[in-house]
């Protein structure tokens, strides 16, 4: 058991584990709707598109975490609403419009960060996460905003469910479909920002989509899918961090890889839709 306890003697490991668990749970719960509504590309684009916001926070604060978080949060929420609006009136197809926006914003972010001479290390942290650099203040921000996201999903869960399963029913029940859709986009945006320090821009979509996709294969009810996804997300965070500690690989990548392994494992063995037992 020593190998389990040894890493916990480092405060940065304890904080990293807490962050990874919270992020795993929040992303998996929001990710359930991302998977069911086919919004994986939106989630990936959103994560990349917040880079210029974080870069501005980084430049004005000289690298302090707080401003990066708030600038990132603002950019994420605005971008989510912007992408939502593009989908409704763009002259090109929605995914094309998202692709253009996301590549442009990402390039702007990289350009802004590259104006600082020592940018390579910081850029790597933005792209791939820096879960071992989580401070107590970061933990509070993650906890508070992650908790808000979870509470909001729980509060509106039956409305989100109707909207996702049957938009016409949502309309005939006179639910405010547009407002609920934007609320969901904003929740995804907040979940992305909360998670960026753990897995980074480039691997964000793994936390959002992979645990939820694995849970989709294992469950037959939405609540169960959310629960199993949260469990897989949290476990991936913990297992990934231990892996990175002992095997000495980048922590964000290790977490994303464990998510992927969970998915492949369930895909092979899922009793309902899997390769081995499925029809």
């Amino acid at each position, binding site marked *: 058991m020593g190998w389990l306890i040894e890493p916990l003697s480092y405060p940065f490991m304890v904080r990293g584990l807490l962050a990874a668990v919270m992020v795993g749970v929040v992303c998996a719960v929001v990710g359930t709707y991302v998977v069911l509504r086919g919004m994986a590309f939106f989630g990936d684009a959103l994560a990349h598109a917040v880079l210029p916001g974080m870069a501005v926070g980084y430049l004005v604060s000289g690298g302090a975490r707080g401003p990066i978080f708030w600038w990132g949060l603002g950019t994420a929420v605005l971008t989510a609403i912007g992408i939502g609006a593009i989908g409704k009136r763009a002259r090109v197809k929605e995914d094309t419009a998202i692709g253009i926006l996301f590549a442009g914003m990402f390039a702007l972010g990289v350009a802004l960060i590259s104006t600082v001479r020592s940018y390579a290390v910081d850029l790597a942290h933005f792209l791939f996460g820096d879960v071992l650099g989580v401070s107590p203040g970061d933990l509070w921000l993650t906890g508070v905003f992650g908790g808000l996201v979870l509470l909001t999903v729980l509060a509106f869960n*039956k409305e989100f*469910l109707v909207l996702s*399963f*049957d938009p*016409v029913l949502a*309309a005939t029940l*006179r*639910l405010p479909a547009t407002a609920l859709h934007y609320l969901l986009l904003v929740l995804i945006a907040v979940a992305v920002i909360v998670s960026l320090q753990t897995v980074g821009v480039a691997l964000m979509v793994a936390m959002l989509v992979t645990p939820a996709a694995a849970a989709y294969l294992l469950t037959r009810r939405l609540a169960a899918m959310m629960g199993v996804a949260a469990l897989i997300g949290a476990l991936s965070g913990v297992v990934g961090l231990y892996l990175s500690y002992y095997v000495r690989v980048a922590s964000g990548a290790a977490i994303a890889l464990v998510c992927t392994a969970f998915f492949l494992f369930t895909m092979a063995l899922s009793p309902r839709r899997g390769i081995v037992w499925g029809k």
Partner: protein
Amino acid sequence: MARGIHFTRLETHEAGAPILSVTELTVHYDGRPALEEVTFTLSGGERVAVVGPNGAGKSTLFKAIAGVLSPSAGAVKVAGHGPGGHICIAYVPQRSQVDWSFPVTVADVVMMGRVGRLGLFRRPQRQDWERIRQCLTVVGLTGLAGRQIAELSGGQQQRMFIARALAQEAQLVLMDEPLTGLDLPNQGDIFAILDDLRRRQVTVMVATHDLNLAAERFDRVMLLNRRLLGIGQPGEVFTPERLRLAYGGHLRLVETGDGLAVLSDTCCGGDL
């Protein structure tokens, strides 16, 4: 009446007003007219078949009645008010439009019909689940409440959506081709449930391609091809001229000694 916090102010039903009155309804879909100047009235408990070729505007008509599509001209009144203030209109989708792999059980889908009545921030209580059980009993699906929806047969899937309309306490049920792809026993089950709905004074409109069923099992039939070509008894509506007007060459008509035989409506499925 619905309690709790709601997104929309709901209209009460005006005494004496017909359950559905459609006046000069014109709807554009993708810039083209999908329905033009349709006018008719339905009374409580009536069962009407809506027939017409693909692209005739059957689904568009239903969505305009449900308040999901806005008319370009004309008006829809449900029990005296526009459809937007009502949660008593149920739309039963075509089975091909449903994501059957969605992680929900039969009871979950039926409970979705209660969401409008529950209001914000209220979770279903014991009496709500009891109500769902009753709705499932009416349609004969009690034992399948916990099944994932992909595990149902086509007829059972259709009955589940009728149960959802019951849970919604719908007064007006719009069914988009519920009979397509069902065998005779399954169609019989559906009609037995529709008889039950009639006893509850629920008005039902059914879009169908089956002219024989339309003629035999409904109070009135409606012939539609963008314009309303007729509504009334099958004998008055299904005349050779009107049918040719609706279907052009897509219908085989044989005039026999004692009337008209319709051989088949050659177009099926997948229309809007």
